[in-house]
């Protein structure tokens, strides 16, 4: 009796699904008669999701002309590899929306077959736009999960590269893949990540950024705690370090976790250049970050409280430039900082060609005009422009945004307590950074806790033969990058 009830419910599910689907006009249901056995069969599919040429060339001719006695025969006659026979009606909805064609025989109501006929609409692989590099591979991820994993598998052709897939989002049913190298990655990290991803409850996940915000350790921090990248080569490289990658279907950005603060300031191009050059560029970038955050607050603090710190040769320039300005330094600085933020926001929202005009109008016209009108001093204009320029050197876009935001609390503290205020604000920032974790691993590592091995690829990057160990903070299963233990010395033939 109970079994019967269940059966009815299942049947009811199929009927209910069909009833819903019929409301949409891209749902097709056609019945045919097999020419050999005279069996009547029905195919149903969603036209916008399937490739009709597959249906017409590889399925229908065989279904019509080859002997079709029962549902198992479908597997034998059609020229499609992925044919699944099932009797679970609850699968129907999901399979149809994944691009399968449903085949039912009139004589057999409880069993049915699914034929894979997905239409693959994939954007061509293009060059990376956000993390562009002059040297090195020019491939970037696209919006298709399979395509992205294909790019990764080509770079890491080993059986240890494990892919786990989870479907997230009650409405979007987004496929989220987790990739790691089983012989290297710390199982604890994998476990934590799997737990967190499985616990995500949300209706529609349309991009990997959603995942970042849903599984971050501290969701109230302005700092991104998962590194997002559009470069398959970067993902492949960090997988080999023992990190874990998350790829979300429909998103051209893969996520890397656990990550550290310094990783956000390393561009992947650093690894293509000689270690001296890349170390130099990294230091420049770090200097740019410090400069970008601190220079306007220092200007405000010095001019408001610490005139005695100004070198005597600079006094004349500073006083002359501020002589006509009615605003106190803080308002002057806020005015310019907000102008720059407006320009950036306007430039980001507008189409590229109009955006360039905005840059010129904003940079030159507003800047010059405000100096001439006596609203801002030209010294500050230079400082603010330089600070904005410096903030754009951050290789990861999301980190760049966080850096730009940080300037405003610093400005406030500088206005309230001068240089002491900047120091207080810096202590707050440092406390926050020290407490921050990425997948329960310290975010400020290797600076704090100090790890000498990891310093070799942090603020500077030492040559590859000096880096025989994988990053320490993840506690990888196998900490050495190669088994020999020697430092890849070049050997000449006569030695």
């Amino acid at each position, binding site marked *: 009796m109970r079994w019967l009830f269940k059966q009815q419910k299942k049947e009811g599910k199929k009927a209910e699904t069909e009833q819903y689907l019929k409301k949409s006009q891209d749902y097709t249901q056609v019945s045919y008669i097999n020419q050999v056995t005279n069996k009547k069969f029905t195919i149903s599919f969603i036209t916008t999701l399937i490739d009709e040429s597959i249906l017409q060339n590889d399925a229908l001719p065989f279904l019509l002309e080859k002997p079709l006695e029962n549902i198992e025969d479908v597997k034998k006659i059609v020229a499609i590899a992925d044919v699944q026979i099932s009797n679970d009606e609850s699968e129907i909805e999901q399979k149809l929306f994944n691009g399968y064609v449903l085949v039912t025989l009139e004589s057999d109501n409880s069993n049915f077959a699914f034929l894979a006929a997905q239409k693959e609409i994939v954007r061509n692989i293009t060059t990376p736009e956000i993390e562009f590099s002059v040297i090195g591979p020019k491939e970037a991820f696209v919006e298709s999960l399979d395509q992205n994993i294909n790019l990764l598998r080509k770079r890491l052709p080993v059986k240890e590269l494990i892919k786990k897939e989870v479907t997230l989002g009650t409405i979007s049913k987004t496929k989220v893949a987790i990739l790691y190298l089983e012989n290297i990655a710390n199982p604890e990290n994998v476990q934590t990540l799997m737990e967190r991803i499985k616990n995500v409850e949300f209706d529609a996940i349309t991009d990997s950024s959603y995942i970042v915000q849903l599984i971050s350790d501290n969701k109230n921090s302005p700092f991104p705690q998962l590194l997002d990248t559009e470069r398959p080569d970067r993902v492949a490289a960090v997988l080999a370090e023992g990190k874990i990658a998350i790829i979300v279907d429909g998103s051209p950005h893969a996520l890397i976790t656990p990550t550290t603060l310094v990783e956000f300031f390393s561009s992947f191009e650093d690894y293509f250049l000689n270690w001296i050059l890349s170390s130099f560029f990294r230091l420049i970038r770090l200097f740019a970050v410090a400069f970008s955050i601190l220079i306007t607050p220092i200007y405000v603090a010095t001019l408001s*409280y610490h005139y005695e710190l100004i070198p005597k040769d600079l006094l*004349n320039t500073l006083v002359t430039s501020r002589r006509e300005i009615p605003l106190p330094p803080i308002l002057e600085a806020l005015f310019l900082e907000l102008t720059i933020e407006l320009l950036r926001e306007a430039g980001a929202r507008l189409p590229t060609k109009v955006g360039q005009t905005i840059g010129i109008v904003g940079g030159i016209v507003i800047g010059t005009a405000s100096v001439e009108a006596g609203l801002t001093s030209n010294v500050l204009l230079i400082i603010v422009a330089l600070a904005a320029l410096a903030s754009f050197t951050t290789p990861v876009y999301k980190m760049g945004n966080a850096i730009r935001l940080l300037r405003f609390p610093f400005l406030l503290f500088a206005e*309230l307590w001068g240089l002491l205020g900047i120091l207080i604000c810096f202590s707050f920032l440092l406390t926050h950074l020290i407490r921050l974790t990425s997948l329960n691993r310290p975010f400020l590592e290797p600076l704090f806790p100090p790890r000498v091995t990891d310093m070799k690829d942090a603020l500077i990057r030492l040559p590859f033969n000096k880096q025989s160990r994988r990053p320490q903070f993840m506690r990888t299963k196998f900490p050495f990058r190669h088994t020999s233990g020697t430092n890849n010395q070049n050997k000449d033939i006569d030695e």
Partner: protein
Amino acid sequence: MKKVQLWSLIIIMIFATGCVEKEILDDVNLETAAGYDYIDKKVRGSALVPVFLPDKTVHNTVFTASSNLSRDFLRDIQRQSSDPIVTGSLEVVLFGEKMAKKGIVDIIDAFQRDASIGTDIYLAVTEGPSKKILEGNYSKRGNAIFISNLIRQNIETKDVPKTNLHLFLSSYYQKGKTAYLPTIRSIGKNKIEISGISLFKGDRVVDTLPAKQMFFFKLLVDNYSKGTFKVDMKTEKAAVESIRSKFKMRLVSRKPLTVGINIKIRAILIEYSGAKVTTKEIKEIEKSLNETIERECTKLIKRFQEKGIDPVGLGHFVKSRTRKFDFKTWEQTGYSNLKVNVKSDVMITESGVIE
């Protein structure tokens, strides 16, 4: 509980902001140089405040007030100024001749206590009233910068020994050592020069060395010194530039108390009136230079001993080598009876590009 802590922190922070005094750069008058004169039994203070003009030149304004205390005078000149006068950018402090003879430590005390003033400001004594020096018009960048650059340039590359507020105070408070400051005088309209060294006993000027002797003085008081010096020989004349000098004191004997001073100089020959410079000539120049240095330095030390001043710090040196050193007997008899042997060792390392 955490929320209470957070909110009380925020509230305290908001109220604490009122405790900080703001000094916005363009809303204050920066005192960049000060001068003190002793006139009519009162201290007359002058403050030089630059006014920065739109064409980046500087107009020098001098505020003057008389009072008995250095700080008092600042309060008086505030009444003449549109913006508050602040002392943080002070570059140089001048003392008039009479003021310097009267004693300057009361005034310097004020600078020492003011946290906004660094100890690397320059002090100098002027011939005549200091106000006259401040009122000149020497450079487009302002008088204070001109005077302080003038002193610095001469310390770094020429014969003026290193001085600033810090070193002055250090020699002043050091037992067995006396202080010295450069002297500045006006030469014609809008021109000044360093005319010599004022030697202090305590905080009073008791002697002034002419510019001619500054080279030897610098050899005695600075460890590393640069400077130029002319040598007169039998027939020819030469000029040498010292590039490096080393000064070393040794206690030679205790009875009678004798101090040996070794001065080692590496120098370049920059001018020679003769036709050719050979090793022989260089030896001669070195020899005559050694003799001059030894003679002049001994003369200087004799002069110090007569006046009872000790800018070289001989007293301090002997004290550091003597157990149970008694300053009273040192001041009464010890210093004047001290024998000092000056030994100089000049080596000319270059005699010109073309040889």
